[in-house]
């Protein structure tokens, strides 16, 4: 969050609630980067992430009147962004398997010999696994929260995370000797 906005957050939020375009624009500028980063880490393409960014702020503009200030503004916006990103990957589900990517890319046989960097390995995970890794390990959501956002159980989130870490370990060449 930009420090200038932090200093006058209450005023900006109050103005944004009345639909003031300048205040809504200030909110966008303050949170554009973290929202895009979260969306891009979850979604497969930058186009999808940009769409999520737009969807998120459209929702923020429509719903800022309903923000109760019970948690942080970033926490509220982040939950909207995570939901929009998960909605996007649900729409893209047909391509959401590591196995499919492996077959298409013909790399399965080479896995044990590859040492990928973390960015590439993260990118290679299925969208669902990547979303769970990012939301749990980086954003700090619990398995219960992730399960609820995905319309699944906490166990689903846990097993996705374990599967994702096993694959990351393999792709990063971190196998224990």
């Amino acid at each position, binding site marked *: 969050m930009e420090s200038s906005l932090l200093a006058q957050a209450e005023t900006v939020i109050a103005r944004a*609630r009345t*639909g003031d*375009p300048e205040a*809504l*624009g200030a909110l*966008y*500028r303050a949170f*554009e*980067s*973290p929202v*895009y*980063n979260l969306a*891009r*880490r979850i979604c497969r393409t*930058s186009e999808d*992430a*940009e769409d999520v*960014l*737009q969807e998120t*702020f*459209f929702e923020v*503009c*429509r*719903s800022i*009147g*309903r923000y109760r200030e019970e948690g942080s503004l970033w926490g509220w916006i982040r939950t909207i962004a995570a939901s929009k990103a998960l909605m996007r990957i649900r729409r893209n589900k047909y391509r959401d398997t590591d196995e499919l990517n492996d077959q298409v890319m013909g790399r399965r046989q080479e896995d044990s010999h590859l040492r990928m960097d*973390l*960015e590439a390995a*993260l990118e290679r995970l299925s969208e669902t696994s990547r979303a769970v*890794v*990012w939301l749990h*390990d*980086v954003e700090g959501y*619990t*398995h219960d929260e992730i399960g609820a956002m995905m319309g699944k159980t906490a166990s689903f989130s*846990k*097993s996705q*995370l*374990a*599967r994702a*870490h*096993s694959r*990351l*370990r393999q792709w*990063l060449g*971190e196998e*224990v000797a």
Partner: protein
Amino acid sequence: MNHLSMESLLSLREPGREPGTATAQEHLHQCPQCQAELERLHQRVARLKALPALRPGRDRWPETAARYRAERARRRTRLAGFTGLGGLAAAASVALVLSLGRPTPSADPTTEQLQEAMVRSQALETALGAYNPDGRVLDGRTARMAQELEDRIARVDRELEATELLRQQARDQELLRLWRERVGLLDALVDVHVTRASNAGL
């Protein structure tokens, strides 16, 4: 020796939050390989957190703001449309009253019911206007319900306009059906805004 699974290691990572079993803790304590694996897990997560922030390639605010402005304008137009159709209903009611005042061979029950529906619709719109729903804060569920009802009312309004193309008898029946539907939807909308009923059963 069976080493800890990834799921067990993940549970052990956050004692208290994701409690591992005592057996797993005991194994970890005695197994250098699992200790190394847990350490790698910690490092991997630390590296994930340290990945550089990605930024959008282009500014999406102008599009977002334009879309929001368009939606606000559409919403205002729709609410103004309610009032406009309210006026239409009033005018139509007067015409119907005048028509009913004339001696006719047999009073048409459809006409009376139609008038009744129009008057009710007008009363509900007045109630809704007095409540000023646009100036109020709604929770997400209520807002979605209101939005859906407004969309359905807008659809009925379009159908009402289209009845002009029908023949007289068919038109009266269709008008009655549509005005009744409109009254039902307005009733639900007033209910959503005023009582914020959570179980309108959409």
